[in-house]
């Protein structure tokens, strides 16, 4: 059994009624974002808090594997794309000029649309002088809502073949404001637009990394991104004893708080492989996540 760093006291934590939004992100994929997000959600629920989990990794959502929610509601998500009335169209070409995404082009006075490239800005229908363009919804995915053991659950599932995931992430997050209690947002990997969409608006970002050169490189990128968004952050090192000390050295130099180190434990990996939460399969991990919840709280109150 790996040693516990720090101890968890049973005292009541005063963020019982917290409305905080915590985003879990990583830069590098596969470092344990979903492990941390789902185990933290479960731990908070067991502490008696209201928790909602949002899976914003809509390209590959995996939180449901661990939380096993009962889905109660499913909404199709569409974005408005242009439909051209050829009777009215004069082929003036203004729509093609305003579109930045080549989703509508005019060749020899004929209009062609490429709905999969459209981002739904509505510019074409606004600019059309003869009102020949209307907007129709095109499905890009679904948002599912349900309930797991003490946890409210939302996830977005991107339709396979869709290029743009940000509008779907936006939809998943729409329920954030109406949910009571702590909100856990599981973000996709990387540092570009879908991650930003998932993370922005959070009160705190937890960056999960591993102590390897790849983990460190991608952590630096993720830290840059979160700082750009001006959100407080903390780091969790997963499989903390597999690599080198460079991540710790970096965090220290940058004044980044290291909130938790999870050891490399084959039993955790095996529980993960079976789709089980670490805190359920290996109850000795519960205090680790209690401690993480308290560390975030402390970090925010400073």
């Amino acid at each position: 059994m790996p040693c516990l760093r720090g101890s968890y006291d049973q005292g009541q934590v005063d963020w019982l009624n917290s409305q905080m939004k915590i985003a879990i992100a990583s830069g590098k994929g596969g470092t344990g974002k979903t492990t941390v997000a789902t185990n933290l959600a479960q731990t908070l629920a067991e502490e008696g808090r209201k928790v909602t989990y949002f899976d914003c990794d809509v390209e590959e959502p995996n939180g449901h594997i661990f939380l096993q929610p009962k889905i109660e509601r499913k909404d199709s998500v569409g974005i408005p794309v242009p439909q051209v009335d050829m009777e009215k169209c004069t082929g003036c070409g203004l729509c093609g000029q305003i579109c930045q995404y080549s989703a509508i082009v005019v060749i020899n006075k004929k209009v062609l649309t490429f709905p999969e490239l459209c981002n739904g800005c509505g510019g074409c229908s606004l600019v059309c002088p003869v009102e020949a363009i209307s907007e129709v919804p095109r499905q890009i995915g679904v948002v599912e809502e349900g309930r797991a053991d003490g946890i409210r659950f939302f996830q977005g599932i991107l339709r396979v073949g869709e290029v743009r995931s940000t509008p779907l992430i936006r939809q998943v997050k729409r329920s954030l404001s109406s949910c009571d209690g702590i909100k856990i947002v599981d973000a996709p990997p990387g540092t570009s637009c879908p991650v930003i969409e998932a993370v922005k608006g959070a009160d705190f970002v937890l960056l999960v990394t591993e102590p390897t050169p790849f983990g460190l490189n991608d952590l630096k990128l993720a830290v840059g991104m979160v700082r750009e968004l001006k959100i407080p952050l903390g780091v969790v090192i997963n499989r903390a004893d597999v690599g080198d000390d460079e991540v710790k050295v970096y965090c220290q130099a940058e004044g980044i708080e290291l909130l938790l180190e999870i050891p490399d434990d084959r039993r955790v990996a095996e529980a993960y492989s079976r789709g089980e939460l670490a805190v359920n399969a290996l109850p000795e991990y519960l205090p680790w996540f209690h401690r993480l919840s308290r560390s975030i709280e402390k970090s925010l109150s400073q």
Partner: protein
Amino acid sequence: MKELVVISGKGGTGKTSIVASFSTLSQRKVLADCDVDAADLWLILEPRILRRESFSGGRRAQIIEKKCTACGKCQEVCRFDAISFDGSANSLVKRTYRIDPIDCEGCGVCAYFCPDGAIDFQEQINGEWFISETRNGPMVHAKLGIAEENSGKLVSLVRKEAKHLAEEKGLDLVIIDGSPGIGCPVIASVTGADLVLVVTEPTLSGQHDLERVAKLTAHFGIPTVVCINKYDLNPEVSATIEARTEEAGLKVVGKVIYDPAVTKAQIMRASVVEYTGGKVAEDIKSLWRHTVYALG
């Protein structure tokens, strides 16, 4: 000339470690790191940059404060809630509009409809791309700026440059390190490729994500083969993945054993096959031979 793309669906399954080993095992090829969001291949191959170019992924709107008359048209037409009425005063009004650069999607609708020409809509530099030399051959790679957009466009650019380079040098293969997921950068890295190798792991998440990414490559009609990395971590899930992969008409071309030497190699800035001759290296060599065979 052929293009082999290594992707994974789920992140962290070992894509880049496998591509690094392929770079050691293969001859006559160009490497392309298309995981432009979180590019890591360079950490192993330590490229010497020969050429460096900036990348523009699109435009971004910005209010020219001194011209803004606070009419509010820009906010009215913006669908992305990127415009707020909290800019500083100018000689005309007490408050101006302001565009949040992170929320702005670069559609330009505000700039088009601004009656005072008070919105600037310029090309942005969103990143850089490089042509480099490495100990394992030429490499094209890129760096997307932090919090930047349009990684798909940068991926397409890296692929195009890698192909050019291969043609120029008379090389027969481009090996592409892709990104996780199934969205924009992944689609840009696989469309029109000759073969996709999906690296997965024996976990329910790995299996779930493999199924989604295999649907994606089927959707685009790209020949696809599968590798199960760390297969001994959960032999049961491994067997299920193998069975379901074959049911789907795809082939598992390799299984690679879990070995801490993979992490150690990374720390030593070496590919796994450079670092060790153990079973893990043998597994990767066999994977490479079968992948080449599948490539035809």
